[in-house]
Every structure is written in C-alpha cells, then in structure tokens.
C-alpha cells in the first residue's frame, strides 16, 4: 500500500463510467463460416430503398441542432438517449421555452448517429447541465433570428415587436411572421449554416413559462397503446432472429463445436468466428433450438474462478497489478489518530448487483451495399458506431447507429454487445438479424455494479468532534468518496482491484457504496460520542446546501419527536449525502422481522435539491424510482456466484423490488431558483440504504455493515 500523498490527483468520478473496448474480435473470413440450405431464405431480397443520407449536418451549426418545419413543427436534434429518465420531454420543454412555442410543436429526434450532433454518452447526469443549455442556446438563437428577420422585413425596431406562441407581430400594425414562415427563407439558410452557430440569450429563470412547470412524458400515448418501437421491437424486411452460444462459465473458452449438426435445419445460418458462435433463423424459437443442438457438441476449457463467498478478502488481496491507489490527504492521519481521545474502526461491504433493466440488450443489424445500420439500446451511440466500424473494418461514416427510446439502462447499457452479435450474424446471413438477450444472458453476461469493501477509521477529539478520518474503498469506485464532514486530518483512498465479475457503471456509480459506509459510520461515531445522529452531523457540516436538505427532511419527518417514541421492532434512521452537485437527505422508519432479521422499509421522507427544477413531474418520478430501486440493493439484491457460474441469475432468485415493497414516500423538493439546474436521475438513490441500516440499529440494536442489509447470522 502506498501511503505517500499525491494530493494533485483528485479522484474524479467521471473516469469511472464504464468505457470498455468491445470484446469481439472477428476474422470476418468466409472460410470459417458455414451457411446452409433452406438457402432461399439467405438470398438478400431487400427492396432497394433510398439509402439514408450519411453524416450528421455540419456540426457546430444551428442546423445540426434545430430544424424549422414549414408545417410549423420544430425538430430538435440531440445525441442523448431516452431510457426512461426523461431527456426527451426535458429537451422539448427547453426548446419550447426559448422559442416561445407550445411544447406540442416540438419534435425531438434523439440518438441517430447519421442525423444528430454527438452529445457524448448519456451518463453522469450530464444531460441537464450540458445538453439542455446547448439546446436552449440554439433555440434562443432561432428566436432572435425570427425577431430580427421580422424587424428587417418590416423596417421596425425589434422592441416594437412581440413574439407569442411562435408568431411575431408588430404592435399597432399588421403583419405576422412565424417559424414556419421563416423556414425556407434565405435569412434562415444563411444563419443556420454558419459555424460556429450564433448563440441566443437565455430566458432568465424568473420569466420561465414552460420550464419549471410539471410536464408528463410528451409521448405517453405511444407507450400506453403499445405502438412505441423499442430496440427489441424493430422489424426489418426479411429479418431473422439470432442466438449466440454462451460459455458455460466465466473464463471458459471454446475448444470445439460442430456446426454440421445444424446443417439440416431449414433457413438457419450458423457462424463460427474465433470464440464467437451463433446462428440466425426465421424464428427465435428455431434459433434457440439450433443453439441447444450446438451446445450439445461444444467442448470448453474452464479455469478456476473466484466465488462470492470470500469475495471481500479476495478483492482486498487483489489490487490491480501495478496500479497505485488514488489518495487524497489533508493534514496527517497518523498524527490525528495519535492525539484522538476516542477511536473507532469499521468495515463495510456492498455486493455486486445487476441493473436488470426491464428490456434486456437487443439489436437489429442490417447490411446494405457495405454499409451497416444498427438499431440498438445503448447509452453511447457514437462510441458504439466507432467500435462497430473498427471491429468490422469499415470507415465510421459507413456505420449508422440508431437508438430507439429503450426499456431502461440505469448505467448498465454503456456497451452494445447485441449490436456486434447481430451485425456479425447479419453479415453472414445476408439479411437483417435481430438479437435479443434473454434475462439469463443479461444476468450472466452484462456487466454488474462493482462490489466493494470499505474500511474506515476515525478519531474524535476531547470535545467529541471529528479529528481524523481515514477512508479506503476497495474496488467499488471513487464517486462521492470525499467526505462532506469537517475533519482536520483526512485521508481518502480508492484501490482498484481485479474484479471476478465484469463490472461497470451503475446509477450513481460508487456514491451509493461510499455514502452507505460513511453515513453508517457517522451514526456509529455519534453513538460512541453519546451524540444524537442529526446534531452530530450538523456539527460537522459546512456546506449549507447539504445542511438545508438535512434540516428539510428531518423537519418534515418529525425526526426529533419520532426518534424518541419507539414502537417495538421498529426504528428510525437518517442519512444524507451529495454527489454530482445535488443534495439528498432521508429519514426512514424500518421494521425488523424478529425471526429472520430482515428489514422492511415502512416509510421514507426524502428531501432533495438539484438547483432550479426544470420539470417537477419528471423529477418526482426520478426520485421515487431512485428510492425504490435503491431499496432493492438495500434489501435483497446480490449476485451470488461460484467458480464462474451465477447461482441466482433469474428474477425468481434475484429479487428486485415489487409493489409490495413500496413504502410510504414523502418528498420535499428544495427548488433553488438561484442556482443552475443539475441532473437528478442518480443522487436520490444514495441515502436510502444507510438510513435503513441506521434505523435497523435503532430497532434491533445491531449494526449491519453490508449491502444488502442483513442482520448477523441471517441468510438472504
């Protein structure tokens, strides 16, 4: 362990968003594939279609962001992905606000690499602070253009003009100019094509008409009628269904497989390329049957793999070879510990968990004249386009990635495995191929949230104030690793480890694990000091925004009264935290089953502040969803594995929250109209688990230091 300080390296969370190179290496050599009869099906009979225009409109121009339609509709283009977190509605609201048109007049085109600007990965709560301002600036520029054009045409001062519902009129005179009227004009063409794009003046918050007001998902009708086309619903003419042969365990490599066995199956195309074995068939049933047949012939070489029993010792003993822990130091931990009048130490654990989005990975790939189009559910369309180009040895502009609004992600779809598999199979079959992962594949072969071991030691001075804080996280990550509590001496370390499971981003990254450990430990310290947990925290918080949410949650919950009044078998607990510029605090009431030690969340009161609120309705959904999703990781979620095999890779065994788990939820939003909005899809998840652990201590007198929360001696 390197204890030398290198202060200059703050551990920034963004670097821990999963950015993984695709694990697919194809020879793309026809000799190694087999193609079979029923072959009529394999001849490409796609009707010729005007080939889609390749390459987004010149980036940096207004045109790349906004289209004014002569039909009066305005289309906003953005590289972000809708996975249920609400960017489509938020972007429409932002554009409507600046353009001064009703939201109904805005269309939002997202995540088509041929058509939209590259706004980067949809992760890290970046849509609100980065994409929304970009959309607003472009929309404001279009608004100003409309007013200036009208002023010029009518030879009037801009102050004499009025813009309402997308139409400029002149006070006391006739004439009207709308965005539709501007569409197709020379002024527009000139302004739209100049790069860099002009930037308009943003509407100040106090004048907002659309932003800041609740708005439900703009396209709800498509979802309630079942007409929305998710990535797994894409249909293409002549499309086949693909299925991939998976190894029987992690680390197993293929030694032999006999593709001849599926020769006689009608319409089935098989591929064996390196370690990749898959097939495409007219129905997914036929594809699955063919893969079963192949699996019967396959021989694998397996290697010993670690198991979830003993996982945390394993992680601690396996730092990434050659890697240095990232360390931040203030003062001297050694000195602080020497002079502390009270010292305390504890270790916390967080299990591997799976995102389990409702829609598993899915992709449809189609080749046409050497160009590849892929419809898939990924948060990272432009990176996936570049990776596909690399793997299939194509120039990037020969690949088009389209992400239809997808069925959840939660940080689990930064990669696009199904896209590579579908593309490989489609190339072989000469037809579009749809690959849709099963739930079992999703549990086993998607990446998981990192497990983590967190060790904390702290010392209090003779006034029971924090004097020293020493925090080390093994494997789970560095998000929200720095404590918001004042301590003269502090050391924070993050140690990357060799993970037995493939791991990556998860909603809020490691801030859940780090906040869990920190907030539980703060309660332990408060107890050691004989202090009340709320007062103990308040005495160490300098950040007024964090203080404000803590006060708001405890006031609304009635913390001071309710903590004293104890019902048998129940307890109250609290926790707070901050990450990505927003602030959360929660008070909970939990009951503990005396027989099993299992907790139940009866009630949660959560306060949240994320600057100025853009869409209160969307925010409320995100916060409710985050609380309940976080409850899953607190209650039960945990990937169990043994020697490379997952033991609980199904919804029957890996139990996610259901209706019956939903507690009474009270939300308190602090709308800071004086602050820039920040993203709100992640941070509201980080307070529920530690608040529950602290409540379990109040209920049963026992500290629970692992997620999922399990009292000692009890099994999941």
């Amino acid at each position, binding site marked *: 362990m390197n204890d030398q300080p290198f202060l200059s390296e703050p551990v920034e969370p963004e670097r821990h968003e999963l950015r993984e190179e695709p694990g697919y290496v194809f020879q793309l050599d026809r000799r190694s594939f087999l193609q079979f009869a029923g072959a009529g099906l394999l001849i490409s009979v796609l009707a010729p279609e005007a080939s889609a225009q390749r390459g987004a409109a010149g980036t940096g121009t207004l045109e790349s962001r906004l289209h004014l339609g002569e039909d009066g509709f305005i289309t906003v283009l953005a590289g972000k992905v*809708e*996975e*249920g*977190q*609400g960017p489509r509605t938020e972007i429409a609201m932002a554009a409507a606000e600046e353009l001064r048109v009703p939201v109904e007049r805005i269309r939002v085109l997202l995540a088509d690499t041929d058509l939209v600007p590259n706004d980067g990965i949809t992760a890290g709560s970046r849509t609100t602070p980065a994409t929304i301002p970009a959309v607003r600036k472009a929309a404001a520029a279009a608004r100003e253009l409309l007013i200036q054009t009208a002023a010029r045409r009518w030879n009037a001062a801009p102050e004499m003009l009025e813009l309402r519902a997308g139409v400029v009129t002149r006070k006391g005179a006739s004439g009207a100019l709308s965005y539709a009227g501007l569409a197709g004009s020379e002024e527009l063409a000139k302004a739209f094509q100049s790069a860099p794009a002009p930037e308009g003046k943003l509407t100040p918050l106090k004048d907002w008409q659309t932003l800041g007001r*609740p708005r*439900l*998902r703009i396209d*709800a*009708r498509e*979802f*309630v*009628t*079942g007409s*929305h*086309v*998710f990535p*797994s*619903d894409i*249909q293409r003419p002549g499309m086949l*269904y693909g299925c991939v042969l998976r190894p029987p365990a992690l680390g197993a490599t293929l030694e032999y497989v006999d593709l001849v066995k599926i020769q006689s199956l009608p319409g089935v195309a098989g591929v064996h390329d390196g370690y990749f074995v898959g097939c495409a068939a007219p*129905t*997914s*049933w036929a594809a699955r049957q063919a893969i079963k047949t192949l699996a019967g012939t396959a021989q694998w070489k397996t290697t010993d793999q670690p198991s979830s029993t003993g996982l945390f010792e394993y992680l601690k003993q396996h730092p990434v070879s050659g890697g240095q822990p990232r360390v931040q130091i203030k003062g001297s931990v050694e000195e602080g510990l020497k002079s502390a009048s009270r010292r305390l130490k504890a270790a916390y654990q967080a299990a591997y968990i799976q*995102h*389990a*989005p*409702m*829609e598993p990975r899915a992709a449809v790939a189609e080749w046409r004249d050497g160009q590849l189009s892929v419809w898939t559910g990924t948060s990272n369309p432009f990176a996936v386009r570049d990776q596909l180009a690399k793997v299939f040895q194509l120039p990037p502009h020969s690949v088009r990635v389209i992400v239809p*609004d*997808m*069925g*959840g992600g*939660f940080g689990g779809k930064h990669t696009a495995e199904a896209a590579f598999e579908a593309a490989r199979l489609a190339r072989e079959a000469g037809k579009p191929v749809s690959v849709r992962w099963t*739930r*079992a594949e999703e549990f086993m072969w998607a990446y998981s949230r990192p497990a983590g071991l967190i060790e904390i030691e702290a010392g209090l001075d003779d006034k029971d104030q924090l004097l020293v804080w020493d925090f080390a996280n093994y494997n789970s990550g560095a998000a929200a690793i720095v404590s918001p509590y004042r301590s003269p001496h502090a050391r924070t370390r993050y140690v990357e480890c060799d993970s037995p499971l493939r791991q990556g981003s998860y909603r809020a990254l490691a801030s859940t694990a780090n906040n869990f450990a920190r907030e539980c430990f703060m309660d332990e310290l408060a107890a050691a000091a004989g202090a009340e947990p709320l007062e103990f925290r308040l005495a160490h918080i300098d950040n007024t925004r964090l203080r404000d949410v803590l006060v708001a949650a405890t006031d609304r919950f009635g913390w001071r009264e309710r903590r004293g009044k104890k019902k048998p078998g129940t307890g109250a607990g609290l926790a707070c935290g901050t990450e990505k510029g927003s602030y959360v605090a929660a008070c909970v009431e939990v009951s503990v089953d005396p027989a099993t030690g299992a907790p139940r969340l009866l009630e949660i009161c959560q306060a949240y502040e994320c600057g100025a*609120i853009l869409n*209160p*309705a969307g925010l*409320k*959904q*995100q916060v*409710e*969803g*985050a609380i*309940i*999703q976080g*409850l899953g990781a607190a209650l039960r979620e945990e990937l169990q594995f043994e020697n490379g095999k997952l033991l609980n890779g*199904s*919804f*029957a065994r890996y139990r996610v*929250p*259901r*209706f019956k788990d*939903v507690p*009474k*939820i009270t*939300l308190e*939003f602090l*709308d800071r109209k004086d602050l820039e909005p920040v993203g709100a899809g992640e941070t509201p998840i980080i307070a529920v688990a530690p608040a529950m652990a602290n409540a379990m201590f109040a209920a049963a007198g026992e500290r629970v230091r692992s997620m999922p929360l399990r009292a000692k001696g009890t099994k999941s």
Partner: protein
Amino acid sequence: MATLRFTVNGKARSVDTPGDRPLLDVLREDFKLTGVKYGCGEGQCRACTVLINGRAAPSCITPVRAAGGKSITTIEGLSNGEALHPVQQAFADEGALQCGYCTPGMILTATALLERTPHPTPEQIVEGMNGNLCRCCGYPRIIAAVQRAAGHRPALREGTNGE
C-alpha cells in the same frame, strides 16, 4: 407442427407452428404484435401479459398450443380506435411510465384486475399487481393510475411535492 386457430384482438387468426413455441413469440414474430414484451421468460415479470379469454396470463410461459381456440387480447387490441381504454388513459394522465417497457403488461394486468374488482382497495391493487415488475420502479405512479382508472382519483395533483 400444428395448425392452431384463435381470435387475436377480435380477428380470427391461424398459424402453423410447433405447439411448444411460447405464445409470446408467435404474437411478436408471426403477428408482429410487438406491444407484447419479453422481460424474463420465466413468468416472473409479467411484461408479456396478454388477456386470454379476459384473464391476464404471462404469454412467455404459455405454449401457443394452450391458446388454441381462445380469444387473446394484446395491448394493441385494447383501445377502440382513437379513443383510449380508460386504463390506458389513466396511465397516460398519471404519467405512470418512465421507460414504458413494463407499461403494456401493467395496463393489461390492471384491466383484468378492475374487471374482477371494479373498486379495489389499495391493498387489493398491490396484491393484484405484485406479479408485474417495473425496473424503473415507478410503482407509486402505477398505483395512482389504477386508482384513477377505478374512478378513485380526481385530477393529477400539480406542484412539486409528494403525497
């Protein structure tokens, strides 16, 4: 292979197919009714819910053979032309969806529930819907939508604060 006949969304349909194939696959792949969703294939999430003779059933674990002769309703067949079914309308009005992938299954389950129990208590809603998973965890809004469809909720509350 067997020839199976049934009524799908009010129309007589037939299909020649192995009888073991899941009804889910036949609806999605043969009839292109992709509003029916796959979520687990093990009867655990009910994203694949359809109504079979009016009862909610998981189509992923229903072999197509078992649906022979029956009347099947998918989400595509629930509304009557342009007008939404009251349960669909309630989901839209409450904003009871985030990614929306669980939504068709939720709506059909709720439709069957309200058919049986037109005025469910909150406990009956939770009990009746508990088989359906929503990974966006939008359960509170979904409960609100079912209550609204049952005529128990007036208009959507505005404002930023919770219950």
